[in-house]
């Protein structure tokens, strides 16, 4: 019964979403407060209903209820409990339900934390959220219903793809979806503003925390996905320019641009039209990503839905929302008043440059992702656009942006003094140059690129710190004053500095791995030793091992420094999941400082040796540490009081602190 109740709750959520879409928007049109207020309880109840539905599906997974088709297809009674739970969204139907759950979750958040918004704006935002929910719930019910039943129920399920049986899967999609779907709020704000025909600095302030939250989650989701691919796929790549990865990178780039342009709009009331367009485009890219991943039009690791009916349905949603919103935009944009003016050399100017580069880079990634599909549709030729394309286009476009990042926060609004800012950054520049030279001389004299790249990363980190130093007045005031000023800086200043520093760390990681990585491939037998990057790796033993639902050949390596200092063992294995007869490689990874040693097993050679592939990945962990720092920066910014300006208090009540925490 719980299954059917979950199913019913989802259907009911659809009906309620219809109401949430229509009533508040009609209310806003005819200026009726009561109708506008329907949005909030509807959004909250909708969240409750979809959550109930999701819980019903999860409990079916936990209890191995194979009378549910979806559970039978994707679960197995012998699976560990954790993977039964994560299996709920490890498949097409369940992941779409999670998508909708997160969508209505954001709707409920707007209802709860949106009290500081004018009633009509809140009503329109919730109405647009309701429209998106409608489209996706009906998509689930019509083409991918996770509650389809099986009668009689089989006694055993068909297991979950073992590659997906991993803790990475548990965290990666929810985070990614929190990001993807979070941008729906920015989209709803944009549409609501266009419907109302009002777009001003206050709007930008209201939309920023939502954009920031979505951006943070997406950053985390992308980083998790990257790390998961790194250690699970067994070849140690952290980014493959796989279309599915691109699908998550695109809204990230768009969202980053949106964050910056909304800043200009809030401060200076400028870039209004552009910001609204970016909000629409960013969520459109999220929808596009959902389409690419869910329709199965791509050849990629994630292709687990191959039903064309679904693709056509999502394409319909895509066309409806993107087309509809752009049409509304074209109709309304002309009526928006222009904003404040500024000089090219100014904070605004820097942010515009940021937007120009980011959107251009977004466009190249988009072209590279869609071009093969386009070519195939038109000519029937099958081509692949891989890493070389993106390295050649995305790289040169984004690197100059990284060079100018430290200037941005130091420039004044309206009219900046480039020379003064450069002087302040002189220290950071000198230090970065010194480190680049040091890297060139000490680490690798062959690679100028590596040295420059590391220098660039250091420049970003130190440049971000310089902003904090300058703003707290180091060198101009007494130490005690500096300290109190430092403490008094707005949180958003720290957030900016951390996020920019995080970009720097990730840059260092990426550049050093791609340019300085070393690799050894050797056919080894127990007892043999391979030397790599000052370490000795001795192949100790190869023995069979049986896990809960797999068997494996486990190779143990003993690691030591060349000088003889022992560093323990590294275990790598080749696994065979028995239910599906599916082999996987479990890499042995050893973190040494910021770097990692990555050991992966291959096949046996005819003379009984085993092929072992060993990588030395210098400073590879910085790639994900950087993302973590960016997320921390986002969190700190979210805590800034400016983003929490409360609703106006009714005048009758005593004046209490009216901020919504």
């Amino acid at each position, binding site marked *: 019964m719980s299954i059917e109740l979950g199913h019913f709750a989802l259907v009911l959520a659809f009906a309620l979403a219809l109401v949430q879409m229509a009533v508040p928007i009609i209310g806003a049109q005819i200026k009726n407060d009561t109708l506008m207020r329907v949005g909030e309880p509807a959004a909250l109840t909708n969240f409750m209903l979809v959550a109930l539905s999701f819980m019903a599906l999860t409990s079916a997974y936990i209890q191995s209820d194979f009378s549910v088709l979806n559970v039978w297809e994707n679960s197995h009674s012998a699976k560990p409990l954790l993977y039964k739970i994560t299996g709920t969204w490890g498949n097409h139907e369940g992941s779409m339900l999670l998508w909708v759950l997160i969508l209505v979750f954001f709707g409920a958040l707007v209802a709860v934390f949106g009290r500081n918004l004018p009633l009509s704006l809140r009503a329109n935002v919730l109405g647009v959220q309701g429209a998106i929910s409608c489209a996706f719930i009906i998509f689930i019910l019509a083409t991918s219903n996770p509650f389809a039943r099986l009668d009689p129920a089989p006694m055993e399920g068909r297991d979950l793809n073992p590659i997906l049986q991993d803790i990475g899967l548990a965290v990666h999609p929810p985070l990614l979806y929190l990001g993807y779907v979070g941008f729906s709020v920015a989209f709803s704000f944009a549409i609501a503003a266009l419907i109302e025909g009002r777009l001003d600095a206050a709007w930008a302030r209201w939309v920023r925390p939502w954009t920031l939250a979505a951006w943070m989650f997406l950053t985390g989701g992308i980083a998790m996905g990257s790390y998961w691919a790194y250690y699970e796929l067994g070849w140690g790549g952290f980014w493959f320019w796989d279309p599915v990865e691109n699908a998550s990178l695109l809204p990230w780039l768009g969202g980053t641009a949106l964050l910056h342009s909304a800043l200009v709009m809030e401060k200076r009331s400028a870039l209004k039209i552009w910001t609204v367009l970016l909000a629409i485009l960013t969520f459109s890219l999220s929808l596009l990503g959902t389409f690419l991943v869910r329709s199965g039009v791509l050849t990629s690791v994630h292709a687990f839905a191959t039903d064309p009916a679904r693709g056509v349905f999502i394409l319909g949603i895509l066309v409806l929302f993107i087309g509809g919103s752009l049409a509304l935009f074209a109709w309304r944009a002309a009526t928006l008043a222009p904003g404040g003016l500024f000089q090219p050399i100014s904070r605004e100017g820097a942010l515009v440059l940021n937007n120009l580069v980011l959107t251009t880079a977004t466009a190249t990634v988009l072209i590279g992702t869609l071009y093969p599909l386009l070519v195939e549709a038109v000519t029937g030729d099958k*081509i692949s656009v891989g890493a070389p394309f993106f390295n050649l286009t995305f790289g040169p476009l984004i690197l100059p942006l990284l060079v100018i990042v430290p200037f941005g926060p130091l420039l004044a609004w309206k009219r900046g003094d480039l020379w003064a800012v450069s002087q302040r950054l002189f220290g950071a520049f000198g230090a970065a140059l010194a480190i680049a030279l040091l890297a060139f001389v000490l680490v690798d004299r062959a690679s100028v690129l590596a040295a420059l790249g590391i220098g660039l990363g250091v420049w970003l980190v130190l440049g971000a710190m310089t902003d904090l130093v300058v703003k707290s007045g180091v060198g101009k005031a007494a130490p005690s004053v500096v300290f109190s000023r430092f403490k008094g800086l707005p949180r958003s200043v720290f957030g900016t500095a951390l996020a920019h520093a995080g970009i720097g760390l990730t840059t260092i990681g990426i550049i050093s791995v791609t340019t300085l990585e070393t690799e050894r491939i050797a056919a080894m037998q127990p007892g043999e030793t391979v030397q790599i990057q000052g370490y000795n790796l001795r192949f100790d033993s190869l023995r069979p091992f049986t896990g809960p639902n797999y068997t494996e050949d486990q190779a143990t390596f003993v690691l030591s420094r060349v000088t003889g200092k022992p560093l323990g063992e590294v275990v790598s294995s080749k696994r065979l999941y028995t239910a599906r007869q*599916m082999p996987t490689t479990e890499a042995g990874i050893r973190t040494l400082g910021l770097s990692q040693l990555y050991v992966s097993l291959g096949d046996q050679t005819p003379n009984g040796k085993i092929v072992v592939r060993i990588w030395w990945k210098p400073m590879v962990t910085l790639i994900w540490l950087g993302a973590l720092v960016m997320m921390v920066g986002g969190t700190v910014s979210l805590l800034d009081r400016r983003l929490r300006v409360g609703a106006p208090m009714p005048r009758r009540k005593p004046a209490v602190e009216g901020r919504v925490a």
Partner: protein
Amino acid sequence: MTRKQKRLAIIAGALGFIGAATGLTLYALGEQTSYFYMPGDLAENPVAAGQRIRLGGLVEKGSIVRSDDTHVRFTVTDGSNTVSVRYNGILPDLFREEQGVVTEGVFDDSKMFVADTVLAKHDENYMPREVADSLKEKGVWQEN
């Protein structure tokens, strides 16, 4: 400069940047994309040595020859034509005889395909899309 001139200069700069990006993209699309071929396509239209392509098909039964080091040779077939492939490195977990495979690389002067990447289908229900389509056209493979 007057304000108008300044604005024009900025717009020109932005257009220049976008133009450069477009040029770069077009160039990269021309140079860095690799076309997908089956052995049969290559029999009809041979590809020059050194041009980067993707080659897909089935791994021919009994064709995998491993040397004592890390080199592997095998033959990719579409049922009628075959191409010999050489590869150095670890083959993917799902690389097996008579299973779909996509390799990426170039032909050397002796018509041997030197692959630097080998991708195998990634689970039991999934065949590289290009391979599946082409094989279905030829009737070699059917979806079960």
